[in-house]
Protein backbone atom coordinates (compact mmCIF):
# COMPACT_ATOMS: atom_id res chain seq x y z
CA UNK A 1 0.00 0.00 0.00
CA UNK A 2 1.49 3.30 -1.09
CA UNK A 3 1.11 6.37 1.11
CA UNK A 4 -0.79 9.42 -0.13
CA UNK A 5 2.37 11.50 -0.32
CA UNK A 6 4.16 8.82 -2.35
CA UNK A 7 1.32 8.71 -4.87
CA UNK A 8 1.24 12.53 -5.00
CA UNK A 9 5.00 12.60 -5.59
CA UNK A 10 4.68 9.97 -8.30
CA UNK A 11 2.15 12.22 -10.05
CA UNK A 12 4.63 15.08 -9.81
CA UNK A 13 7.55 13.10 -11.24
CA UNK A 14 5.38 11.61 -13.98
CA UNK A 15 4.56 15.03 -15.43
CA UNK A 16 8.00 16.62 -14.91
CA UNK A 17 9.40 15.53 -18.33
CA UNK A 18 6.59 17.49 -19.99
CA UNK A 19 8.02 20.72 -18.54
CA UNK A 20 10.32 20.64 -21.59
CA UNK A 21 7.34 21.84 -23.59
CA UNK A 22 5.15 23.39 -20.87
CA UNK A 23 7.72 26.00 -19.74
CA UNK A 24 8.60 27.41 -23.19
CA UNK A 25 4.93 27.34 -24.18
CA UNK A 26 4.05 29.21 -20.96
CA UNK A 27 6.70 31.86 -21.60
CA UNK A 28 5.46 32.30 -25.18
CA UNK A 29 1.84 32.56 -23.99
CA UNK A 30 2.67 35.25 -21.44
CA UNK A 31 4.83 37.21 -23.85
CA UNK A 32 2.30 37.03 -26.70
CA UNK A 33 -0.46 38.38 -24.46
CA UNK A 34 1.59 41.48 -23.64
CA UNK A 35 2.61 41.85 -27.31
CA UNK A 36 -1.09 41.83 -28.25
CA UNK A 37 -1.35 44.93 -26.03
CA UNK A 38 -3.23 43.52 -23.08
CA UNK A 39 -2.70 44.71 -19.52
CA UNK A 40 -0.17 42.33 -17.87
CA UNK A 41 -2.60 41.67 -15.03
CA UNK A 42 -5.21 40.62 -17.54
CA UNK A 43 -2.82 38.29 -19.33
CA UNK A 44 -1.96 36.63 -16.06
CA UNK A 45 -5.63 36.35 -15.15
CA UNK A 46 -6.13 34.06 -18.17
CA UNK A 47 -3.53 31.66 -16.69
CA UNK A 48 -5.31 31.65 -13.35
CA UNK A 49 -8.94 31.68 -14.50
CA UNK A 50 -8.87 29.81 -17.82
CA UNK A 51 -5.66 27.79 -17.22
CA UNK A 52 -5.38 26.20 -20.65
CA UNK A 53 -2.44 27.12 -22.91
CA UNK A 54 -3.76 27.02 -26.44
CA UNK A 55 -7.15 28.42 -25.45
CA UNK A 56 -5.52 31.42 -23.69
CA UNK A 57 -3.55 32.33 -26.81
CA UNK A 58 -6.58 31.98 -29.11
CA UNK A 59 -8.68 33.99 -26.68
CA UNK A 60 -6.27 36.94 -26.63
CA UNK A 61 -5.56 36.67 -30.36
CA UNK A 62 -9.27 36.86 -31.19
CA UNK A 63 -10.01 39.80 -28.86
CA UNK A 64 -6.98 41.78 -30.03
CA UNK A 65 -8.02 41.12 -33.62
CA UNK A 66 -11.38 42.74 -32.94
CA UNK A 67 -13.50 39.60 -32.64
CA UNK A 68 -16.56 39.81 -30.41
CA UNK A 69 -16.44 38.47 -26.85
CA UNK A 70 -18.97 35.85 -27.82
CA UNK A 71 -16.67 34.47 -30.52
CA UNK A 72 -13.71 34.43 -28.11
CA UNK A 73 -15.64 32.70 -25.33
CA UNK A 74 -17.15 30.17 -27.76
CA UNK A 75 -13.71 29.32 -29.12
CA UNK A 76 -12.34 28.75 -25.61
CA UNK A 77 -15.32 26.53 -24.85
CA UNK A 78 -14.90 24.51 -28.05
CA UNK A 79 -11.14 24.06 -27.62
CA UNK A 80 -11.47 23.04 -23.98
CA UNK A 81 -14.46 20.75 -24.48
CA UNK A 82 -11.99 17.85 -24.86
CA UNK A 83 -11.76 17.92 -21.05
CA UNK A 84 -15.23 16.36 -21.03
CA UNK A 85 -13.59 13.24 -22.46
CA UNK A 86 -10.79 13.32 -19.89
CA UNK A 87 -13.37 13.66 -17.12
CA UNK A 88 -15.38 10.73 -18.45
CA UNK A 89 -12.26 8.55 -18.37
CA UNK A 90 -11.05 9.70 -14.94
CA UNK A 91 -14.48 9.52 -13.31
CA UNK A 92 -14.03 5.77 -12.93
CA UNK A 93 -11.24 6.37 -10.43
CA UNK A 94 -12.69 9.45 -8.76
CA UNK A 95 -16.31 8.41 -8.27
CA UNK A 96 -15.99 7.57 -4.57
CA UNK A 97 -14.65 11.01 -3.63
CA UNK A 98 -16.79 13.66 -1.96
CA UNK A 99 -18.30 16.30 -4.24
CA UNK A 100 -16.01 18.91 -2.69
CA UNK A 101 -12.87 16.96 -3.58
CA UNK A 102 -14.19 16.33 -7.09
CA UNK A 103 -14.75 20.07 -7.55
CA UNK A 104 -11.21 20.87 -6.40
CA UNK A 105 -9.50 18.17 -8.50
CA UNK A 106 -11.44 19.20 -11.61
CA UNK A 107 -9.68 22.58 -11.75
CA UNK A 108 -6.30 20.86 -12.14
CA UNK A 109 -7.17 18.54 -15.05
CA UNK A 110 -5.05 19.33 -18.10
CA UNK A 111 -3.81 17.30 -21.08
CA UNK A 112 -0.44 16.05 -19.83
CA UNK A 113 -1.70 15.41 -16.32
CA UNK A 114 -4.68 13.47 -17.63
CA UNK A 115 -2.47 11.37 -19.91
CA UNK A 116 0.06 10.45 -17.22
CA UNK A 117 -2.56 9.84 -14.53
CA UNK A 118 -4.62 7.72 -16.92
CA UNK A 119 -1.60 5.46 -17.47
CA UNK A 120 -0.81 5.24 -13.76
CA UNK A 121 -4.39 4.65 -12.64
CA UNK A 122 -4.88 1.87 -15.17
CA UNK A 123 -1.79 0.03 -13.95
CA UNK A 124 -2.51 0.52 -10.25
CA UNK A 125 -6.29 0.35 -10.08
CA UNK A 126 -6.27 -1.79 -6.94
CA UNK A 127 -4.53 0.97 -4.95
CA UNK A 128 -6.30 3.38 -2.63
CA UNK A 129 -6.08 7.18 -2.83
CA UNK A 130 -5.35 7.20 -6.56
CA UNK A 131 -6.68 10.74 -6.84
CA UNK A 132 -3.45 11.95 -5.22
CA UNK A 133 -1.71 11.09 -8.48
CA UNK A 134 -4.12 13.34 -10.40
CA UNK A 135 -3.54 16.08 -7.83
CA UNK A 136 0.25 15.66 -7.83
CA UNK A 137 0.45 15.91 -11.60
CA UNK A 138 -2.17 18.64 -11.88
CA UNK A 139 -0.74 20.91 -9.19
CA UNK A 140 2.78 20.53 -10.60
CA UNK A 141 1.60 21.47 -14.09
CA UNK A 142 -0.42 24.34 -12.63
CA UNK A 143 2.57 25.67 -10.69
CA UNK A 144 4.97 25.60 -13.63
CA UNK A 145 2.34 27.09 -15.92
CA UNK A 146 1.79 30.05 -13.56
CA UNK A 147 5.54 30.64 -13.15
CA UNK A 148 6.33 30.35 -16.85
CA UNK A 149 3.48 32.54 -18.09
CA UNK A 150 4.42 35.13 -15.43
CA UNK A 151 8.03 35.11 -16.65
CA UNK A 152 6.83 35.58 -20.21
CA UNK A 153 4.68 38.53 -19.11
CA UNK A 154 7.49 40.19 -17.14
CA UNK A 155 10.52 39.40 -19.31
CA UNK A 156 8.91 39.22 -22.75
CA UNK A 157 9.67 36.44 -25.19
CA UNK A 158 13.28 35.87 -24.16
CA UNK A 159 13.30 32.59 -26.07
CA UNK A 160 14.64 33.22 -29.59
CA UNK A 161 11.89 32.58 -32.10
CA UNK A 162 14.36 30.89 -34.46
CA UNK A 163 14.49 27.91 -32.09
CA UNK A 164 10.96 27.02 -33.17
CA UNK A 165 10.14 25.81 -29.67
CA UNK A 166 6.47 25.61 -30.61
CA UNK A 167 7.48 22.29 -32.12
CA UNK A 168 7.92 20.93 -28.57
CA UNK A 169 4.12 20.86 -28.21
CA UNK A 170 3.36 18.16 -30.81
CA UNK A 171 6.44 16.31 -29.50
CA UNK A 172 5.17 16.25 -25.92
CA UNK A 173 1.89 14.73 -27.08
CA UNK A 174 3.71 12.31 -29.34
CA UNK A 175 5.68 11.16 -26.28
CA UNK A 176 2.37 10.53 -24.51
CA UNK A 177 0.90 8.19 -27.11
CA UNK A 178 4.01 6.69 -28.74
CA UNK A 179 3.89 3.58 -26.56
CA UNK A 180 0.37 2.78 -27.75
CA UNK A 181 1.70 2.42 -31.30
CA UNK A 182 2.37 -1.19 -30.30
CA UNK A 183 -1.39 -1.81 -30.34
CA UNK A 184 -2.94 -1.94 -33.80
CA UNK A 185 -6.41 -0.93 -32.63
CA UNK A 186 -4.95 2.23 -31.04
CA UNK A 187 -2.96 2.99 -34.19
CA UNK A 188 -6.17 2.79 -36.20
CA UNK A 189 -7.89 5.30 -33.89
CA UNK A 190 -4.85 7.61 -33.91
CA UNK A 191 -4.76 7.69 -37.72
CA UNK A 192 -8.50 8.39 -37.84
CA UNK A 193 -8.03 11.33 -35.46
CA UNK A 194 -4.90 12.63 -37.19
CA UNK A 195 -6.31 12.62 -40.70
CA UNK A 196 -9.61 14.04 -39.47
CA UNK A 197 -7.70 16.93 -37.87
CA UNK A 198 -5.92 17.72 -41.16
CA UNK A 199 -9.21 17.71 -43.07
CA UNK A 200 -11.18 19.63 -40.43
CA UNK A 201 -8.41 22.10 -39.57
CA UNK A 202 -10.24 25.10 -41.04
CA UNK A 203 -13.56 24.37 -39.35
CA UNK A 204 -14.85 27.40 -37.38
CA UNK A 205 -13.88 28.08 -33.72
CA UNK A 206 -10.91 25.66 -33.93
CA UNK A 207 -13.50 22.93 -33.60
CA UNK A 208 -11.17 20.37 -35.23
CA UNK A 209 -9.76 19.87 -31.71
CA UNK A 210 -13.02 18.27 -30.57
CA UNK A 211 -14.48 17.12 -33.92
CA UNK A 212 -11.45 14.94 -34.76
CA UNK A 213 -11.59 13.01 -31.46
CA UNK A 214 -15.33 12.49 -32.00
CA UNK A 215 -14.68 11.12 -35.50
CA UNK A 216 -11.94 8.86 -34.07
CA UNK A 217 -14.14 7.62 -31.22
CA UNK A 218 -16.92 6.78 -33.67
CA UNK A 219 -14.29 4.89 -35.69
CA UNK A 220 -13.27 3.08 -32.48
CA UNK A 221 -16.90 2.20 -31.76
CA UNK A 222 -17.36 0.73 -35.26
CA UNK A 223 -14.06 -1.14 -34.99
CA UNK A 224 -15.20 -2.75 -31.73
CA UNK A 225 -18.45 -3.84 -33.37
CA UNK A 226 -16.59 -5.41 -36.28
CA UNK A 227 -14.27 -7.26 -33.93
CA UNK A 228 -17.16 -9.26 -32.44
Amino acid at each position, binding site marked *: MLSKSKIFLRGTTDVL*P*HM*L*SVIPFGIITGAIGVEFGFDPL*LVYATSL*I*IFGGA*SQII*FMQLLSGGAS*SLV*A*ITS*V*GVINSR*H*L*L*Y*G*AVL*SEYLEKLSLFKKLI*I*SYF*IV*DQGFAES*NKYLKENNSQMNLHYHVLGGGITLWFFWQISTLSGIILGSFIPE*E*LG*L*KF*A*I*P*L*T*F*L*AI*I*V*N*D*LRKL*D*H*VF*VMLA*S*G*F*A*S*LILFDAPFKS*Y*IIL*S*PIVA*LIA*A*FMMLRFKR
Partner: protein
Amino acid sequence: MTWLSILLSGIVTYFSRMAMIALIDRDMLGSKVKEVLNYVPAAVFPAIIFPGVFFNDFGSIVEFTDPKIYGAIIALLVGFYSRNVIATIVSGLLSYWFIIFFLLK
Protein backbone atom coordinates in the same frame (compact mmCIF):
# COMPACT_ATOMS: atom_id res chain seq x y z
CA MET B 1 -15.69 43.75 -20.85
CA THR B 2 -12.48 41.81 -21.34
CA TRP B 3 -12.53 40.83 -17.68
CA LEU B 4 -16.06 39.51 -18.05
CA SER B 5 -14.97 37.51 -21.13
CA ILE B 6 -12.09 35.97 -19.17
CA LEU B 7 -14.41 35.08 -16.33
CA LEU B 8 -16.98 33.48 -18.66
CA SER B 9 -14.24 31.61 -20.55
CA GLY B 10 -12.96 30.36 -17.21
CA ILE B 11 -16.41 29.19 -16.18
CA VAL B 12 -16.93 27.37 -19.50
CA THR B 13 -13.51 25.72 -19.18
CA TYR B 14 -14.00 24.74 -15.55
CA PHE B 15 -17.40 23.30 -16.42
CA SER B 16 -15.85 21.08 -19.12
CA ARG B 17 -13.31 19.82 -16.56
CA MET B 18 -15.81 19.27 -13.80
CA ALA B 19 -18.98 18.06 -15.55
CA MET B 20 -18.11 14.42 -16.18
CA ILE B 21 -16.33 14.01 -12.86
CA ALA B 22 -18.76 15.68 -10.49
CA LEU B 23 -22.14 15.73 -12.21
CA ILE B 24 -22.37 12.45 -14.11
CA ASP B 25 -22.92 9.16 -12.35
CA ARG B 26 -20.51 6.56 -13.70
CA ASP B 27 -23.32 3.99 -13.89
CA MET B 28 -25.05 6.16 -16.49
CA LEU B 29 -22.38 5.15 -18.99
CA GLY B 30 -22.99 1.77 -20.65
CA SER B 31 -20.30 -0.89 -21.00
CA LYS B 32 -19.89 -0.05 -24.70
CA VAL B 33 -19.20 3.59 -23.90
CA LYS B 34 -16.65 2.59 -21.27
CA GLU B 35 -14.91 0.39 -23.81
CA VAL B 36 -14.74 3.23 -26.32
CA LEU B 37 -13.37 5.55 -23.60
CA ASN B 38 -10.21 3.40 -23.55
CA TYR B 39 -9.36 5.11 -26.82
CA VAL B 40 -9.63 8.71 -25.56
CA PRO B 41 -5.85 9.40 -25.57
CA ALA B 42 -5.54 7.82 -29.04
CA ALA B 43 -8.48 9.92 -30.24
CA VAL B 44 -7.52 13.29 -28.74
CA PHE B 45 -3.75 13.71 -28.98
CA PRO B 46 -3.21 13.02 -32.71
CA ALA B 47 -5.57 15.96 -33.37
CA ILE B 48 -2.97 18.14 -31.63
CA ILE B 49 0.09 16.37 -33.08
CA PHE B 50 -0.85 16.20 -36.77
CA PRO B 51 -1.64 19.92 -37.25
CA GLY B 52 1.45 20.82 -35.18
CA VAL B 53 3.65 18.83 -37.55
CA PHE B 54 1.90 19.15 -40.91
CA PHE B 55 0.75 22.80 -40.80
CA ASN B 56 2.93 25.92 -40.66
CA ASP B 57 2.25 29.08 -38.63
CA PHE B 58 -0.07 30.38 -41.35
CA GLY B 59 -2.28 27.31 -41.31
CA SER B 60 -1.26 25.90 -44.68
CA ILE B 61 0.02 22.39 -45.16
CA VAL B 62 3.82 21.97 -45.22
CA GLU B 63 5.84 20.28 -47.94
CA PHE B 64 7.07 16.77 -47.32
CA THR B 65 10.61 18.16 -47.02
CA ASP B 66 9.67 20.17 -43.90
CA PRO B 67 12.13 19.70 -40.98
CA LYS B 68 9.25 19.19 -38.54
CA ILE B 69 8.24 15.99 -40.31
CA TYR B 70 11.72 14.50 -39.92
CA GLY B 71 12.02 15.69 -36.32
CA ALA B 72 8.70 13.99 -35.59
CA ILE B 73 9.78 10.74 -37.27
CA ILE B 74 13.03 10.64 -35.22
CA ALA B 75 11.08 11.39 -32.03
CA LEU B 76 8.60 8.66 -32.90
CA LEU B 77 11.33 6.06 -33.41
CA VAL B 78 13.27 7.09 -30.29
CA GLY B 79 10.07 7.16 -28.24
CA PHE B 80 8.92 3.79 -29.53
CA TYR B 81 12.13 2.03 -28.56
CA SER B 82 13.14 4.02 -25.45
CA ARG B 83 9.61 4.38 -23.95
CA ASN B 84 10.96 7.56 -22.40
CA VAL B 85 9.21 10.95 -22.52
CA ILE B 86 12.34 13.10 -22.20
CA ALA B 87 14.22 11.09 -24.85
CA THR B 88 11.26 11.47 -27.23
CA ILE B 89 10.96 15.25 -26.88
CA VAL B 90 14.71 15.95 -26.81
CA SER B 91 15.51 13.72 -29.82
CA GLY B 92 12.75 15.41 -31.81
CA LEU B 93 13.95 18.91 -30.92
CA LEU B 94 17.64 18.14 -31.47
CA SER B 95 17.07 16.55 -34.86
CA TYR B 96 14.82 19.47 -35.83
CA TRP B 97 17.50 21.98 -34.78
CA PHE B 98 20.20 19.98 -36.54
CA ILE B 99 18.23 20.20 -39.78
CA ILE B 100 17.35 23.91 -39.58
CA PHE B 101 20.72 25.14 -38.21
CA PHE B 102 23.18 22.88 -40.03
CA LEU B 103 21.65 21.11 -43.00
CA LEU B 104 19.61 24.05 -44.30
CA LYS B 105 22.22 26.75 -43.61
